[in-house]
């Protein structure tokens, strides 16, 4: 491990100790960065995350429609939100969209990432084309797919054998399917990029050793590549979960929460409450509930995945 680490200079450290020393003694002597390094980030986090969070918490106990002064209403917003069937439904929908995202995108991006890390002909060109969706904003992507999936003038009008009457946005299952598909189309490239980097970092000696032992492609993939990608899988999945829980623009533009409330996920419901119904108190309560839920979920993910004790995968190689 030590030889690998010392080959890159430390990002932070004070000048005296940062001078290069012979391998081995170096790491121990690098000064730990002082607390001052964290001050700017702490400041911005406090101003732009903690302070608004507190304001939202206060707002969730008030009634405010954006006009005049907010009124105290106690726990009224909370009891309304927690009793609201649409809210309960929106939580299930949010979880469903998140799970679908992880379940579809993870295997796809692992396979593509491992492929893109290889040396095949034309691989570079294909990879570049393939990463294009990553460059587009969610809004542009949503507008694009809404037009492409128009039942009378889009793809469904040409491929009726596949889409029937093309009423994709009119049924819950297909509307959620579209959301999952668009998210996959847009974000798989990003995760592929993570896996590509990780797969390239796997030392080739592992594969050479396995080949000498007579391992085939599948064995190499399942016994070397996948285990070596473990930390990247956790990282990528956490990003997917965070993204899934905060899905918003695609719903706003593609389905507007419809048909009825069938794709009204929590973040969109919060937006509806705040900026369509001008019920900022209830919106704040939803927002806070989302923060709590997301925190719990990420804590669970960190525990279950062992992210907190994440170890390097290089042991025994140096």
């Amino acid at each position, binding site marked *: 491990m030590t030889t690998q680490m010392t080959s890159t200079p430390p990002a932070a450290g004070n000048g005296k100790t940062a001078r290069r020393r012979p391998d081995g003694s170096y790491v121990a002597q690098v000064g730990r960065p002082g607390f001052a390094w964290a001050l700017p980030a702490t400041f911005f986090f406090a101003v732009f995350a903690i302070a608004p969070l507190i*304001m939202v918490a206060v707002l969730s106990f008030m009634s405010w429609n954006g006009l005049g002064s907010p009124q105290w209403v106690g726990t009224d917003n909370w009891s309304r939100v927690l009793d609201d069937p649409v809210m309960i439904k929106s939580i299930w929908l949010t979880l469903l969209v998140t799970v679908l995202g992880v379940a579809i995108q993870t295997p796809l991006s692992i396979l593509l990432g491992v492929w893109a890390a290889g040396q095949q002909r034309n691989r570079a060109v294909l990879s570049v084309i393939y990463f294009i969706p990553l460059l587009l904003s969610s809004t542009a992507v949503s507008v694009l797919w809404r037009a492409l999936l128009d039942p009378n003038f889009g793809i469904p009008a040409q491929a009726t054998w596949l889409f029937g009457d093309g009423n994709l946005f009119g049924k819950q299952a297909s509307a959620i399917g579209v959301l999952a598909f668009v998210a996959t189309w847009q974000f798989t490239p*990003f995760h592929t990029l993570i896996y590509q980097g990780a797969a390239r970092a796997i030392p080739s000696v592992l594969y050479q050793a396995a080949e000498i032992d007579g391992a085939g492609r599948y064995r190499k993939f399942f016994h070397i590549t996948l285990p070596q990608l473990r930390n990247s899988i956790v990282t990528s999945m956490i990003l997917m979960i965070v993204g899934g829980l905060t899905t918003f623009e695609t719903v706003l533009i593609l389905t507007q929460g419809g048909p*009825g409330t069938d794709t009204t996920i929590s973040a969109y419901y919060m937006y509806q409450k705040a900026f369509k119904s001008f019920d900022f108190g209830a919106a704040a309560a939803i927002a806070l509930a989302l923060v709590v839920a997301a925190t719990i979920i990420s804590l669970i993910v960190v525990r279950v995945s062992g992210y907190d004790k994440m170890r390097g995968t290089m042991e025994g190689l140096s």
Partner: protein
Amino acid sequence: MTIRARLPRLIAGGVTLGLTLSLSACGSESGGSSNDGKIHVLVYGDATNKVEKQIIETFNKTSDVKAVLDTIPGADYQQKLQTIISTPQAPDVFFNWGAGSIQPFVKADLLMPLDDFIKDDPGLKDNFLPSVFNSAVVDGKPYGIPMRGTQPVLLFHNSKVLADAGVQPPKTWDELLDAVKKLKAKGYTPIALGAGDQWPTLMWFEYLYDRIAGPELFQKALSGDKSAWEAPESKKALSMLKQLADAGAFGTNFDSVKYTNGASVALVSRGKAGFELMGSWYYSQQQQDAKEFAEKDLGYTTFPTIDGGKGDPNDIVGNTNNFYSVLKKTKHPEAVEKFLKLMYSDEFVKAQMAVGNLTTTANTEKFLDTAASPEYAHFQYDVVKKAPSFQLSWDQAYPQSASTPMHQAVQQFLNGQLDADGFIKAMQALPNE
């Protein structure tokens, strides 16, 4: 489904919410509108701004207190208005819709009743069509002067498609049902409907309720009498709408079609559908999207009559007009009053007509021939003038908080997720203040 940009965005949203909260707290104490010795006029940002700029220039030529035009792009107008209205950045005069959207501002004690202005100059009231002027009256007091144009909902059609199917523009409900059958047999979608946007569907409800029960039923429901939604007329309207949808009038994929991205508009202009029910702005929409079609084959009629219905067949629904409301704390009420008088001037009417808007002033008739399409302007003017009742769109008559559940109920009823009883319950649950 994920990318690092999401979390910061959520946080940024929180900041905005927090800032607006703190801003509004300041605003309610220090109060008053901008302090730069000018009056600020805030309007919905779109093509009509051209006219508003011109009017403000005219006003500034003679006034000591100058006016400034501020615009907010359409989709964000309501949100931004509500976040600045109680801050020092609040406009003196601003664009508003009818009573339902004016009411929350009145309740928050932000608007000036215009009685005193009208006492000074009765023309501020008398120069406008009464049915339009009255839709900005809240608790017996006027809070808006009509500006821009009236927007009745009309039944548009593609005359080529109708001719091909051997159909005449329908005068009665039965003729409409018959037309649906013939158009369907010829392979057309009989009626284009952008149900993906939800509000276009609402127009069908508004007309059916008005034709069958008259305008009183909705007024009763709006005033808080929830039993109105259970009335036999209400059930009849629902069953007729169901009958129309079940006959395949809107096709089967209407929930995937939108008006706002031009898809339902194209259905009609490209000859795939026969009819579309839409506000009078549809004409200029078609002119923009399909100029040749708008000039040659776009036809229009009023909503069909219904046998035995209590409503007057001349009744219309839609948006009566937009209104200028005045901030109570304005520092220059005299200048504002003078500015509002321009809303019935000849110059204003002519300029609105030229961009295709039909004004609702008494002198409108003189200028009909200067309109973008004189024939269409005359037709619209007659319809509005002889209408005994002009029902404001439901989602604008009700307060903002009702619009999302109302739109959802309307969509769910038409696609079968809700039955009549479910729809009635949903409407009864709407907040009405």
